[in-house]
């Protein structure tokens, strides 16, 4: 296993999360480095979403540590997490379909003249930034006034990712960004992720059920099953069969073809 020469941007140590008597995470440790796509793989219910919710401040871990740039950190709310640079793009993307691209891009962090919530919006500047930032990661928007509801799924993902990066995300967490998309749009999103990876200073955590996608862009893998890490490694170390086996929680699926025959 190769160890990158930089320090991890975000790290968990023996993270445990219990929901009452149910243990969703049972001592998960992982390290995510800048400029890398870290694929978080595992079966349904393995605990992937729970892990990233702990990283983004939605859940508070029962025990264990979260370190951001080497410093131990506690998140009491999603706000805390986003303040230290953790940007999460949830499955529902947190977009308002009824308003424009720009209004969504700057939602909650609008640029304005004057202080206070009654400040007048700098619409023109915000239009330009939104177009520019989305172009940086590969999508050209013609009309920043277009309602988000009329955009394609891939474009929406890009909007949400561009927004997270623009507002200072050092760690970008993507929960199944391709799950609801058609083939072409899946590729668009992967290209977007690749572009972010090439920026070099952002660590990306990618949850996916798609082995092909993971192999296309991931630099490092962590496999989770029943709340525990059952394997990890860099893309060079792992064979396709290993990945498939570990993704299914360690069970032998090699014979699936025979079973189905």
């Amino acid at each position, binding site marked *: 296993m190769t160890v990158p020469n930089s320090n991890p941007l975000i790290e968990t140590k023996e993270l445990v999360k219990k929901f009452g008597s149910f243990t969703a995470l049972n001592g998960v440790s992982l390290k995510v480095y800048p400029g890398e796509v870290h694929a978080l793989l595992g079966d349904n219910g393995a605990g992937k979403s729970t892990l990233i919710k702990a990283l983004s401040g939605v859940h508070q871990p029962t025990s264990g540590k979260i370190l951001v740039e080497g410093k131990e950190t506690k998140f009491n709310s*999603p*706000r805390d997490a*986003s303040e230290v640079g953790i940007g999460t793009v*949830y499955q*529902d*993307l*947190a*977009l*308002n*379909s*009824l*308003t424009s691209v720009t*209004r969504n891009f*700057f*939602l*909650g*962090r*609008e640029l*304005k003249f004057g202080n206070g*919530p*009654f*400040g*007048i*919006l700098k*619409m023109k500047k915000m239009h330009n930034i939104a177009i520019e930032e989305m172009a940086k990661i590969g999508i*050209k928007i*013609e*009309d920043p006034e277009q*309602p988000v*509801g*009329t*955009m394609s799924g891939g474009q929406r993902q890009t909007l949400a990712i561009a927004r997270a990066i623009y507002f200072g995300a050092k760690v970008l967490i993507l929960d199944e960004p391709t799950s609801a998309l058609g083939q072409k749009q899946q590729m668009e999103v992967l290209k977007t992720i690749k572009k972010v990876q090439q920026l070099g200073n952002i660590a990306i955590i990618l949850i996916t059920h798609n082995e092909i996608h993971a192999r296309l862009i991931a630099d490092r893998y962590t496999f989770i099953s029943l709340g525990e890490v059952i394997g990890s490694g860099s893309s060079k170390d792992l064979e396709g069969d290993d990945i498939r086996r570990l993704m299914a929680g360690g069970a032998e699926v090699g014979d699936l073809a025979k079973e189905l025959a």
Partner: protein
Amino acid sequence: MSSSENSRKESDRHNPKSSLISLISRPEIGPIGVMILLFGMLGYFSIPASETTWNPFAGEGFNALGIRNNLRVISQLGIIALGAGLLIIAGEFDLSIGSMIGFAGACMAMTLRWGFSIVLPYISFDGGTHLEFYTLLHIPNVTPTLAIFITLCFTLTFGWVQGFIIVRSGLPSFIVTLGGLFFLRGLTEVSLRSFNHRPDQAKGATTVTEIPDIKNIINLPGYGEMEREAAKYLPETDLISIVKNLPSDVIAKISERLEYTAQRVAEAKTDLLIAKGVKPLEKALENAIASDNEFMIKTIQEKIENFKIDPVIPKSITEVDIARAYIDTIGSARPIADFFGGNILETIFDWLYFPIDWNVNNFGNQFAPGLYSCVMIWVILSLVCYIVLSKTQVGNWIYSTGGNLSAAQANGVPTNKVKISLFMFSAFCATLFATCQVFEVNTSDAAKGNLKELEAIAAAVIGGIVMTGGFGTVLGIIVGAFIFGLAKEAFFYIPGIDGSFYRVFLGFVIIASALLNENIRKRIMGNI
């Protein structure tokens, strides 16, 4: 298998619309069409049957008085529709607006009439157990500003409480504000009855009357503050001495105006007398023609031609008249009361009377002194709402709170604050409505504002607000208020049909608008 590389780019799919197309595909265009239709109907049908003209402003609907009255109805509704509409855009709605109007009006009228006190109740045992009150503070003479301030304290607090309960409990706003509707109406009636009774009565009326005409209190030089009407009926010697002290150019201007009016009135009276005299002759002529009596026709025709009447001599202008006219021109000594209850655009309406010859009634007098102040309040409020909703950060917060609550929260929008503030704003609009009404008519009634909450919601829906939130514009709300107000008047003038048909029409318009709005919303959400 064949495949061809698709050389089309994303931008090729974007077909920029011409400005005309994008104008007519704006969501407000439907309501604006209905508004123009109603405008035309009201203009056309209100033209008296005897006249033929293509000028819609010739009819009663849009003569000076018609405009004055119609705009009052429209702007009063418009004020509360803004409160209701913004709240609906944020995903909630308020059924307590109507009761809030009644409550605010009663609160204001009562403090103006009887003053304001803060009392501490306690149980006294002297002479049997009963409740006694210790007065902490008593202000006997409440100024209009203070009355408005006190009322706002109550109504804004109530708006805050409703909003707080809704965001904290997650209960639907329908049920909480329905509670507010009954609570406030009941509270208004109870307080009016208990404050309003004479010592010899057990229960009082649910109205407040005998409030002085505050907006018409003037400061008459040498006499101090008094009501305008009282000033006009000072002893004639006093009035004459007032005129003596006026600069000559002021007197000249006033007497010119009075002479003009007197001339007008005289001409109008002369015309009426001629009409009165000629009408029977014309009738007789018709009969003569019907009976083919050549001789009769001739004599009557001659009679009509030679019909003469001595013109009415214009009333001569006395110094007392000048004094009274002068008193009319003195500005209010209570600008706040005048701001809400008085008139605006008086100079324009004067101009329409003198050079334009349009603001004139059958007797030659000026029809309308101006527009009601509530029109100005509505215009100001609309402008503020427009800027806030479409140009400020709060506007984006309002849209996102109603459009996708969890997305707004995830992006750090203080959605609870947005909602509570809008409940308070809705209460503020209801208070504005009541303020304009109280200072205009100087009375208040517990039944005021009944059903207004539904009218406000209806106006908002007609104007393109989607009930599920997140969608709509201030321009739409304005148009909605116009449609509501115009429909009521237009149907009143259509000959041969019951005026209540306007409700049938509005019912239809509301459902049609809601369907249209939903269609637009779905299209934007990408479901069509």
